[in-house]
């Protein structure tokens, strides 16, 4: 007798085990076998998947949202005193006007605007209202959009204390909350009280416009005055500024421009939006750690849920699995069959996970955004294609890995022994 095994004969016998169709077919039929149990598992996976999506949204969403906010403002490069972030302290760029003028000559630059930012108090009768003040070049500052009235260029740029007063633009929140309108006079000081005003610079201002300030926090009062006025209030001389904002006609040159700026003046840091996000990202590590821990927990719960249910299902079908092996299914095909059950459960839970995740994320985002000091337009949970893809991939991989243990159990079955045991039982 020959030593070689008999060959499969005929065209219909040539492709054994090559198709995924039997796996998909048998997997679906296995899952519908216990519909209530399968539905409950899918519901459980949808909930853990929703948490996973939320954590994925949180991990990348804040950064993506911050990037979106920064991009919408239209400034490709930001220049700050070395080691600081914009408006994070009273440090100033020395000779900011000179540096801005130099930057404006670089290729691809549309304009460079030095901006001063500091806290002031606005006097209305006996009240002293804390307000954030921006010192900007008169006209065309680009850090706000005038909604009502005129821009600073329409008033007297840097005069103070005489007939009309220094022109000032206030934000909508301040106008609405304090009942201030165009033409009203304001006393602006660095001092929180009337007594101390005697020792501090005071400017009498006249409101010439109401504007939407791009850097506002939701409940923040803001005003803008010409830069020399704010420098006087700060008691500073020279041409310093807190920040230089650079608009570019060619944003692709932002990184190289930032390098040029820091090389020209080592006392400053210059960031493109990407570089700024990288630096700000270091301050967002709490969110990343939070999302990593909760995301890992949700993946683990999903994995354990799938492992438990598929192991239970395999335990109930040992006879059938041994029968399939006896009929000619290889160990590999049985492994594929069981792993496919785990993956199918994951895939079936995806629509629920996405819908639920978006709804929960939206609600959590609303809660977090209602906290003080959160800039307008910034979101913590941002639904991005990357978050959806990452969640989908994580759930599917989890399903496959979770199916590995029951698959190994099924693959290790001795056919004859299992059939005998099943028949005897």
């Amino acid at each position, binding site marked *: 007798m020959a030593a070689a095994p008999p060959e499969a004969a005929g065209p219909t016998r040539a492709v*054994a085990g090559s198709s995924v169709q039997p796996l998909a077919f048998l997997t679906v039929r296995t899952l519908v076998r216990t519909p209530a149990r399968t539905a409950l598992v899918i519901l459980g996976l949808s909930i853990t998947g929703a948490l996973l999506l939320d954590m994925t949204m949180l991990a990348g969403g804040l950064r993506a949202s911050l990037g979106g906010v920064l991009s919408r403002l239209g400034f490709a490069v930001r220049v700050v005193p070395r080691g600081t972030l914009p408006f994070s302290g009273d440090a100033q760029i020395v000779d900011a006007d000179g540096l801005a003028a130099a930057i404006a000559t670089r290729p691809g630059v549309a304009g460079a605007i030095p901006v001063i930012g500091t806290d002031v108090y606005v006097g209305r009768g006996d009240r002293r209202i804390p307000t954030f003040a921006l010192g900007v070049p008169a006209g065309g500052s680009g850090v706000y959009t005038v909604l009502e009235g005129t821009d600073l260029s329409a008033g007297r740029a840097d005069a103070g204390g005489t007939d009309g007063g220094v022109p000032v633009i206030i934000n909508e929140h301040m106008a609405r909350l304090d009942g201030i309108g165009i033409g009203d006079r304001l006393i602006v000081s660095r001092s929180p009280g009337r007594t101390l005003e005697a020792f501090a610079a005071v400017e009498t201002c006249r409101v010439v416009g109401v504007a939407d300030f791009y850097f506002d926090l939701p409940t923040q009062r803001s005003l803008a005055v010409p830069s020399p006025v704010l420098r006087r209030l700060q008691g500073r001389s020279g041409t310093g500024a807190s920040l230089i904002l650079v608009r570019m006609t060619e944003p692709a040159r932002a990184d190289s421009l930032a390098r040029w700026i820091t090389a020209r003046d080592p006392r400053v840091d210059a960031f493109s939006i990407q570089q700024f996000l990288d630096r700000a990202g270091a301050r967002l590590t709490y969110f990343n750690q939070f999302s990593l821990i909760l995301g890992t927990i949700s993946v683990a719960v999903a994995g354990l849920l799938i492992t438990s249910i598929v192991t239970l299902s395999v335990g109930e079908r040992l006879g059938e699995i041994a029968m399939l092996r006896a009929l000619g*299914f290889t160990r590999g095909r049985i492994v594929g069959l069981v792993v496919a059950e785990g993956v199918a459960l994951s895939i079936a839970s995806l629509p629920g996970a996405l819908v639920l995740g978006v709804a929960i994320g939206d609600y959590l985002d609303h809660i977090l955004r209602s906290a003080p000091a959160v800039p307008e337009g910034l979101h913590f949970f941002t639904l991005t294609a990357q978050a959806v893809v990452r969640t989908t991939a994580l759930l599917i991989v989890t399903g496959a890995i979770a199916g590995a243990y029951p698959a190994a159990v099924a693959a290790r079955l001795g056919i004859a022994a299992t059939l005998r045991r099943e028949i005897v039982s």
Partner: protein
Amino acid sequence: MTDPDLAVVRAENITKTYPMPVGPVHALRGITITVERGTLLAVAGPSGCGKSTLLYLLGGVDRPTAGSVFLLGARTDRLGDAALARIRLHHVGLVFQRFFLLPTLTAEENVAVPMMEAGVPPPERRRRARAALERVGLADRAHHRPGQLSGGEMQRVAIARAVATQPALLLADEPTGELDETTGRQIGRLLQDLSRDGLAVVLVTHNPELASLADRQVRMRDGMIV
């Protein structure tokens, strides 16, 4: 006497020993047997004498501890798992005492399962599944699920599943063990018909009436043919 040209499966001096904590159990002790095309062979004997073990070794479901098994002229006892699975898929049909039908599949789909695995295209698969069900007298039950069939009908679906891949060897392990006498007789006749169509059929049974339908009978005791 046997004709080697007609031999579908041949076992030469096979033994099967199971190592147990209390000492080895010798399930088969040097059995030599040949089953030819168109033959219905009945293997009878008391429980635990090794009938089912012999069946599984002939069909490549298990491997002998010693000895050789040849299927369609090729030695199979030294093959790896995947190669043995492939041989079972294409050349061996198996019927069990319990039917092991998949409960969420219709009769036709159950019959088609091995053909799916064998890569038979869907139209051909359906045609062959229907033909197999017709062969066992269940054409009108093709779309019924196992829960909607009687025990005898379920066993006939299992037989249709076993023969739909057009194997050379059909192994039936106590196929009437869970059926009443009348239904058992019908199954016996069906197996007889299949052997007359050219299939080599090995039937393990306790039932003397069923065994009497066979062309040949062998009796086993303590792992040996007596």
